């Protein structure tokens, strides 16, 4: 693609994305939402960004389900929009990143088929923002066995990994091997396609993804270290990050103190300082994971400020939008379960 077209396109896409980012719910909105009941939340959402989706789905669902499906559909709409805005290299990179919804959908379908959830229920839970076509997704939801799902996915990026993991699944009858295979296929594809000598914008994209992979590894490592379970950490290791080597991770997961010390001296040390302090003080993993999410968002935002005409604002928007959807869902589900406002507020990640 012609470079002049590309630079102008970056301006166009980032301007649109920044306006949308600014329109996301802010702290005040969350404070209001936390005080509402599920019915009020639904009414509040009808007056915002989510109006179209709430109205479209209102006749089929109600209560918290309605909120959740409206959130998913809105998310898919916005991310599809991003692809229509972008061209050239930017398009390629966004599309590759949005494959994470393919991974999400495949997992949802496998879980749905495993629990005999029924076609409509599975279809409602899908987020149609990835690269899979609607026909493929519909065909997948019609599957009656996991074997059928795996077969139909044989031509996609998940094909080889799923086929390899299928025998494990047959032996143990748990979904963990399949879900791990999906995650790994997704991340290896994400960095695998990148050309040998990436251009400047693509280098930035790789940097962002590395951060995401590193943060995921940190989370997995801490969970393993805390649980003390005798699990081989390398089974959960996602390669492609810059922070850990597979062998290092194995040593570090045996000792939480050692791991936090290692993180403090890593390149993310200053970004993660708050999160690590919180971990040492509160000694709670939930707090730490929340702080980790926040740190990732802040890291992406810092890169956005440094490289304003790049893919960074787009990825920052995608992550922020996902957080918003997660937050609203947490509020609605929390209210439904009868949690208090303070308890829910602790779960929110607000940037």
């Amino acid at each position, binding site marked *: 693609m012609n470079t002049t077209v590309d*630079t*102008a396109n*970056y*301006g*166009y896409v*980032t*301007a*649109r994305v920044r*306006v949308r980012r600014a329109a996301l719910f802010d702290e005040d909105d969350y404070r209001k939402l936390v005080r509402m009941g599920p019915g009020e939340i639904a009414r509040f959402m009808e007056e915002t960004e989510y109006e179209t989706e709430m109205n479209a789905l209102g006749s089929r669902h109600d209560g918290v389900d309605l909120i959740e499906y409206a959130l998913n559909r809105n998310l898919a709409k916005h991310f599809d929009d991003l692809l229509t805005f972008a061209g050239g290299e930017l398009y390629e990179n966004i599309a590759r990143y949005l494959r994470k919804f393919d991974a999400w959908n495949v997992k949802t379908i496998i879980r749905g088929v495993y629990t005999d959830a029924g076609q409509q229920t599975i279809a409602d839970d899908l987020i149609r923002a990835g690269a899979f076509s609607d026909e493929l997704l519909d065909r997948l939801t019609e599957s009656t066995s996991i074997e059928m799902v795996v077969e139909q996915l044989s031509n996609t990026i998940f094909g080889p990994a799923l086929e390899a993991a299928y025998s494990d699944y047959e032996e143990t009858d748990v979904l963990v091997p399949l879900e791990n295979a999906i995650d790994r296929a997704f991340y290896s594809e994400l960095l695998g396609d990148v050309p040998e000598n990436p251009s400047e914008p693509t280098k930035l994209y790789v940097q962002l993804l590395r951060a995401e992979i590193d943060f995921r590894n940190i989370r997995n490592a801490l969970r393993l270290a805390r649980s003390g379970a005798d699990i081989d950490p390398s089974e959960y290791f996602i390669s492609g990050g810059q922070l850990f080597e597979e062998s290092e991770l194995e040593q570090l997961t045996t000792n939480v103190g050692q791991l936090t010390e290692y993180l403090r001296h890593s390149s993310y040390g200053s970004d993660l300082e708050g999160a690590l302090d919180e971990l040492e003080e509160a000694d709670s993993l939930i707090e730490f994971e929340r702080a980790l999410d926040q740190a990732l968002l802040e890291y992406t935002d810092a890169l956005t400020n440094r490289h304003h*005409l790049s893919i960074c604002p787009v990825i920052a928007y995608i992550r922020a939008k996902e957080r918003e959807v997660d937050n609203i869902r947490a509020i609605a589900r929390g209210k439904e379960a009868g949690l208090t406002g303070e308890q829910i507020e602790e779960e929110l990640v607000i940037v």
Partner: protein
Amino acid sequence: MELQLTAAFLNAMVLQAGQAAIPPATGAAIGFGLAAIGAGYAERSIGSAAVGAIAEDRGMLGYGVLLTVIPETIVIFGLVVVFLLQ
């Protein structure tokens, strides 16, 4: 490409005029043209970003147009040079 053309043009001017490499009026015209090209180049990405912002929020129209035409000032400076020479 543009540079080569300009160089060829300048060579031709030197041959024609004999003494001054470029006559003042021609120099002013070249300056004006280059200023306009520069403004166009700058407006290209500002314009596309402005259209993006306006598409999301109509209220941005005023700011969008204002920011898009700011590089236009360079062209006015180019024009000022032309008037100074006359």
